[in-house]
């Protein structure tokens, strides 16, 4: 079959001389369904056993609303913090030369590699009133551990590599000519950074911040130790799911889970739109 014919081929796949299509795709779809799709269907179907009104009652309960607000709000604030610090860290890693740069670069991925429970107890100890950072802060009257601030610290920790790693390659590929042009046209260096460099990494920055936000909304392990988990104040939504599950309130747990799942889908959708907006830059 010629190439032209294979393009016009009306079947759902074009022909190939390579073997193993049926086997590999079959296994892929079977495994994907068994591990991911069917269990997710169980989650989506479960809350309706208590009906729409039951579902609505669960998610509009003040304790649940407070938890959802903290998870989403905390994730948003943490993503914003990383939107400021992330580009600076990425810029330093891409443009500056200094001893220990590779070490610094490798360390950025720590939040991906360090188990969340370990990060959780470490951050909690570090920012507690007796900790290395918590102690000096407590003299300033600032309490981090066991407050909402603690939640934000943990979520900032978890989100940092998403922002840095998304911008870093874009900064690395950036041509220096526009910067030179800006300089010849009389812009100061800071003006160039702000008005030439920053706009060219904005799509990557937004993508990175969205990824960090998505991860932070559902984050559990690194948060529960530092949060203090006061109902209605420093209790995050994933923890509330666990609590409901422990009380055998499966439908209630699933209801909150569905809300969080819906949020994940919105984020995936937003990311896909973003990527088409950012175009081939990625």
């Amino acid at each position, binding site marked *: 079959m010629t190439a032209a014919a294979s393009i016009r081929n009306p079947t*759902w*796949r*074009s022909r*190939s*001389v*390579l*073997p*193993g*299509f049926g086997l*590999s*795709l079959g*296994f*892929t779809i079977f*495994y994907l369904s068994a591990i*991911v799709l*069917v*269990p*997710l269907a169980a*989650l989506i179907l479960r809350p309706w056993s208590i009906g729409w009104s039951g579902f609505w009652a669960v998610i509009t309960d003040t304790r649940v609303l407070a938890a959802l607000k903290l998870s989403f709000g905390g994730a948003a604030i943490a993503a914003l913090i990383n939107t400021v610090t992330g580009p600076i*860290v990425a810029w330093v890693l891409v*443009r500056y030369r200094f001893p220990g740069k590779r070490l610094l670069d*490798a*360390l950025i*991925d*720590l939040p*991906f590699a*360090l*188990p*969340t*429970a*370990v*990060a959780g*107890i*470490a*951050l909690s*100890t*570090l920012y507690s009133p007796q*900790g290395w950072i918590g102690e000096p802060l407590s003299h300033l009257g600032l309490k981090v551990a066991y407050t909402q601030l603690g939640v934000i610290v943990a979520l900032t*920790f978890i989100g940092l*590599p998403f922002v840095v790693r998304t911008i870093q*390659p874009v900064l690395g590929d950036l041509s220096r000519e526009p910067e030179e042009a800006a300089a*010849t046209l009389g812009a100061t*260096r800071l003006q160039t950074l702000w008005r030439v460099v920053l706009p060219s990494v904005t799509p990557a920055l937004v993508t990175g911040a969205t990824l960090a936000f998505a*991860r932070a909304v*559902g*984050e*559990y*392990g690194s948060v529960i130790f530092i949060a203090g988990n006061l109902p209605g104040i420093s209790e995050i939504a*994933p*923890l509330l*799911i666990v609590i409901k*599950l422990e009380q055998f309130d*499966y439908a209630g747990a*699933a209801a909150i*889970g569905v809300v*969080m*799942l819906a949020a*994940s889908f919105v*984020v*995936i959708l937003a990311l896909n739109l973003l990527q088409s907006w950012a175009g081939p830059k990625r």
Partner: protein
Amino acid sequence: MKHWRSPTSDHPLTRLVFMLIAVSVVATFLVLPLATVFSEALSKGFSVAWTAVDEPDARAAIRLTLMVAAIAVPLNAAFGLAASWAIAKFDFRGKQFLTTLIDLPFSISPVVSGVIYVLIFGLQGWLGSTLRDWGFKVIFALPGIVLATMFVTFPFVARELIPLMTDQGRDEEEAATSLGASGFQTFLRVTLPNIKWGLLYGVLLCNARAMGEFGAVSVVSGHIRGLTDTMPLHVEVLYNEYQYVGAFAVASILALLAILTLVFKSLLEWHFADEIAATHRH
């Protein structure tokens, strides 16, 4: 102006400020938490820390963690190979959608990833009573822990291999096939040597997450000491019992694993950059 400065390099003061910000972000969010883990573990001396690790419950937790990773990682690696073979070497409709579905577990809260299996296999779940009649336990037992771990580490190998194999194209495989190699020979002698470093990279990240997963496993494990507690869960139990040295001692093993993962990851990135899919990832 005393010395000439390239128009694309920053003013020394800007440099200093950016470096300070980057270093303090990395120090407060990454280095200090890591240092806290080891310092707390060794706060009463090495022998006390060692006793906490060399105790039956801790050893059972280590064994369980190794066993779970030994099942989940190879299965996900096999899935990753099958999925990337189907997606990278063939053209078919719905490819993009399939790739999105494979990435799905990354954007789902770890807690939700555990809940979905409780909803199916838990006592009040879809299959709960049937399984109980058969005397087969999934939730609060090894199978549940393995399933939850498989879910959260599901995309790691696939998302590394799909872009890599897509970039490599299919010419070499087509040549091998037309020269009479069987499908299995082609895969073993042509494809595998091309992707071995990428595969290792994916397996490395998959393993780190599998051994460190907390949220999803915590939901399905039931926290039966010495039986269904993995290392991260054991850390939580000890920490909540105020056995800080023990908690941080077990956490140090996980932290060492994370450091080892970062070292190998960096080595792979430096030496085989071309044989690993794009360096921007999370």
